[in-house]
């Protein structure tokens, strides 16, 4: 496996970090809550056989203040579609988790040529008031990891401050990541994706952790029904909402088998 490489691209005038590791066909990763403040085990699993490209979403770690340039859902979809182009992911396989799933699904629906195969892990984008999503922005301070992961320490590790970082700036970046998600998904995560799911013709894998406390199981079925025959579903036992943090090997295997 090659070393982790860092590139910088410019998206809407904002310097944006792109991480890359591995060789082979490309696979992209749009993360969920918290973004990708550090490279983690799941990405390493993918990089064993694929070239993994992780562009920073606007406002998420490495994405600067790019979220403030985006004022509506169309802005977000276009910006993240451009992000695929600029980071060398267009036409490749794409993984979207939670927040990132809502964007990845919309890009697949609106710009079908940009995505080959799509893997969604507990994606946002729909909302059913009879079976509501847990509000991740209404958790008591210091407890959000308990709803995000079956192994909360995994999220704590993901967001732990690196040794050489300024503590104030690190805290601000973590809040900014949460804000960026809120900027396009507040308050429910409902981007009315149900109106566009039928446009997704690519093969789609809908993954969900069996212990997901954020998005109820019924949403996996709603996505599948909306997309139709190209969608298949799978459950990762023992994983929470950010399933790839809880069970990196199992999630990577399911996705690599699907995109083969």
């Amino acid at each position, binding site marked *: 496996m090659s070393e982790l490489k860092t590139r910088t691209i410019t998206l809407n005038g904002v310097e944006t970090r792109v991480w890359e590791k591995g060789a082979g066909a490309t696979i992209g990763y749009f993360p969920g809550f918290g973004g990708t403040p550090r490279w983690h085990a799941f990405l390493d699993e993918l990089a064993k056989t694929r070239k993994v490209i992780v562009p920073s979403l606007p406002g998420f770690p490495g994405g600067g203040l790019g979220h403030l340039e985006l004022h509506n859902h169309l802005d977000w979809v276009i910006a993240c579609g451009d992000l695929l182009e600029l980071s060398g992911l267009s036409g490749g396989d794409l993984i979207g988790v939670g927040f990132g799933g809502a964007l990845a699904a919309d890009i697949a629906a609106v710009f079908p040529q940009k995505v080959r195969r799509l893997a969604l892990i507990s994606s946002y984008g729909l909302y059913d008031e009879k079976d509501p999503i847990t509000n991740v922005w209404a958790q008591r301070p210091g407890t959000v990891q308990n709803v995000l992961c079956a192994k909360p320490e995994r999220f704590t590790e993901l967001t732990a401050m690196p040794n050489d970082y300024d503590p104030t700036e690190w805290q601000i970046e973590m809040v900014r990541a949460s804000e960026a998600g809120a900027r396009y998904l507040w*308050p429910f995560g409902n981007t009315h994706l149900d109106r566009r799911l039928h446009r997704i013709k690519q093969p789609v894998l809908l993954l969900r952790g069996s212990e997901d406390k954020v998005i109820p199981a019924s949403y996996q079925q709603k996505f599948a029904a909306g997309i139709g025959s190209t969608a298949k579903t799978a459950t990762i036992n023992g994983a929470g909402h950010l399933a790839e943090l809880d069970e990196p090997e199992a999630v990577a295997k399911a996705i690599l088998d699907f995109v083969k």
Partner: protein
Amino acid sequence: MKICWFHLMPYTDLPEDFQKKHSSVWVDIDSRLFDPKRAHHMYNDFMDELEFAADCGFDAICVNEHHANGYGLMPSPNIIAATLARRTKDTAICVMGNSLALYNPPTRVAEEFAMLDCISGGRLIAGFPVGTPMDTCYAMGQNPSSLREKYREAHDLVMQAWTNPDTFSFNGRHNQIPFVNIWPRPVQQPHPPVWIPGGGSVETFEWCAEMDYVYSYLSYFGYKAGLATMNDFWSKMAELGKDRNPYRAGFLQFVGVAETKQEAMKIYKEPAEYFYGRCLHVDPRYAMPPGYTTEETMRRKYQSQVAAVAQKGEEKKAVSGLGTPADMSIEFIEQEGYVILGSPDEVAEKLREVAINMNVGHLMLLLQYGNMSKDLTNYNTKLFAEKVMPQIKDIFDDKWEDHWWPKPMAKAERAVPAPTTREAAE
């Protein structure tokens, strides 16, 4: 010195075990605790108290806006202000205020404030809060990441609606209106004085300086905790080349007056402990939606916390300002300066010190709080008006002019509301 009488209108019947059995006084407070027939009496008592304060000679009576809140029963302060405009004569009416981003479209605020200014003959102070996280983001669903830009845009729209004599179109990001032409227009020209309630963010200091608005620091935690913020405010004014006119600023303070301090500690114990216990029992899950606090303010807050920990080796209180110690006894409340308690002379001396140290020309006083009865509220109000007010009224007036006070129509030109019974009218 201007002395303003402020009412929050707290629900006075929250049960004694409220903190044990309920998670929050705000956002998801249990609606089954609300008895509308009791609220009928509360509203009428509260309006009596505001009118009584006006009659006692306070310079202004103040109301504010909260939503889904057990200590603030005014989702629409304009409704209360309308009744006050009819039932009071000379007192300024301070609506502190309308959370601009919550009005759709915000021309509604320009219209209703203009109505209030017309009905009152030009006695309105127009307050424009951003609104708390609990009110705006959770109870009213606003996006915390765009709340402030929506607020600023709404402000621009209201100001243009008040000051542009012609019909115009407004092409904003959040509001697109083909014909803006409010009718009525405010009595006070070009517009009523604008006061901005704030929580200590440096951007708000700067904006008040730029727009020449009053900055009013509405903290429930008294003069001791508030001094640092007001010092920051005045440093920023100096940096921006603004004078130290104390009327640029307002400050909220709870007060309880009695014949002696001992007596004050005794009679205000229950309402103060009710407020700082039950009324501030806010679930912290609603205190910090991401993006509500600007990064610059976060940066200053985190840095000052790091410095405090480094210097004192102790953790500061919850960042939201809403985290309250478990033991909210009257002794603690008094000692921390949350409520100033004492004899008239003691309270006057303390308020003089507060006003001068903070350089604040608009004192916004809470003389009703928690479950304080109307009798006790009126006692507090009357004793304050008779024995405290005369001792502090003169502060600043020899040196400074209040450019931010309403300029009503001349008294002789103003309407006199007819008596309320047919017999009296005839």
